[in-house]
């Protein structure tokens, strides 16, 4: 991907975040992915006219099940992510986080917002790399799948129904099957 392509993709993402869109269909199916202790699920996002260019990607750890994660993926690029973490564990922020008044160490559950990471993607990384490392701590009460789904949907302007919000974690059979 060249610099021009990245510019265009970032502008497309800005537009995607503005337009009306919603979660598509019933709840996603959880599948084992690679490591035995990990389950993944994908939930398509539909824009007006039936266009679908993005999805939510969920990760659920079978062992430490208190640490689910959800990412908004647009054309295979991460745009936003919410990670649930124990309150005594921290992830570091890169130095660029200082301009947003964010701390060096972010304890517990956090969000990687597009508005914090857009310039990093575009100006700090080489054209062929993409990542969103800048993170911000969020409420410690955000712990379960339903909470992080509602948070990322609210943040990225994705509409969802009450039934969709009641996201079911993988069943015990899925976890230990």
């Amino acid at each position: 991907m060249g610099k021009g392509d990245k510019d265009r993709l970032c502008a497309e993402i800005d537009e995607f975040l503005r337009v009306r869109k919603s979660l598509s269909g019933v709840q996603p199916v959880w599948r084992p992915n690679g490591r035995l202790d990990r389950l993944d699920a994908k939930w398509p996002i539909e824009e007006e006219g039936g266009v679908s260019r993005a999805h939510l990607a969920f990760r659920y750890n079978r062992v430490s099940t208190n640490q689910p994660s959800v990412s908004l993926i647009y054309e295979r690029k991460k745009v936003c992510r919410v990670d649930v973490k124990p309150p005594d564990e921290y992830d570091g922020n890169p130095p660029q986080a200082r301009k947003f008044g964010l701390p060096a160490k972010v304890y517990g559950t956090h969000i990687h917002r597009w508005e914090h990471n857009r310039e990093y993607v575009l100006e700090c990384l080489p054209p062929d790399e993409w990542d969103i490392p800048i993170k911000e701590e969020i409420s410690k009460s955000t712990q379960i799948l339903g909470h992080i789904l509602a948070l990322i949907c609210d943040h990225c302007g994705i509409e969802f129904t009450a039934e969709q919000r009641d996201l079911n974690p993988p069943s015990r059979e899925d976890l230990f099957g």
Partner: protein
Amino acid sequence: MKALCDIILASTSSLWACKETENGARIRTTCVFPSFEPVFVYVAKLGDGFVVHDAGETVAVIMANGQDGDPAKRVIRSECKRYDVAFGERQISLKIDAAEWLETAIVAVANTAAAAARNALKDNSKRAERNLADVIFQLLEPKLAKGTITKSFPYLGESGRRYKFDLAVQGKDHLTLIETVTPHAISVNSKYVALADVPPESAKKIVAHNNDLSQEDILLLQNVAIVAGPSGVMDLVAGSRIQH
């Protein structure tokens, strides 16, 4: 019995060791230069804050590997952007206002130094390989039938991987592939892999070097090709040892 964490902590106590020097407090980080020497970073007080820097060691490492001038600076500047690190004439540095950012700054400067040295060396190694291939091409071309020697010759390896060999000489009924190698692990390893993927019955294989490879590298590459300096390559290809 000792707990695993106790064993690990006891055997890695030199990591993150800190020593006061005239450049500031020197910290041994877990990052390494391509030679596997540790990256040290230095922390000095600056007003109420700190400056974390590499004391110019990254530039020194790159220079010691034969790279200099603008290409090296371009590589360093490109790596500095990733972690918001500054690059002056010779020094990689990051100023911070509070101790809260010290860990981040140390990690950022150390990773920038390691990545810049690795990329500068890669760039340098590739350019040296290209220069040697040009020299050998110019030496061989007048001595061979027109159109028989080619640069960047595409070849499908036995594994299915595609390669571009630096030079190829196509005779009536056989092919000679020539790879140029510089005395760096990146160059030796990548060329070894490419040549190992060519069955011996498909082509004659030659590694060309500037008479600067170590004995160990020569012995390694002899497992997959004939190893020769520029005059040896001339003798092998344009002389009587391989017919074209």
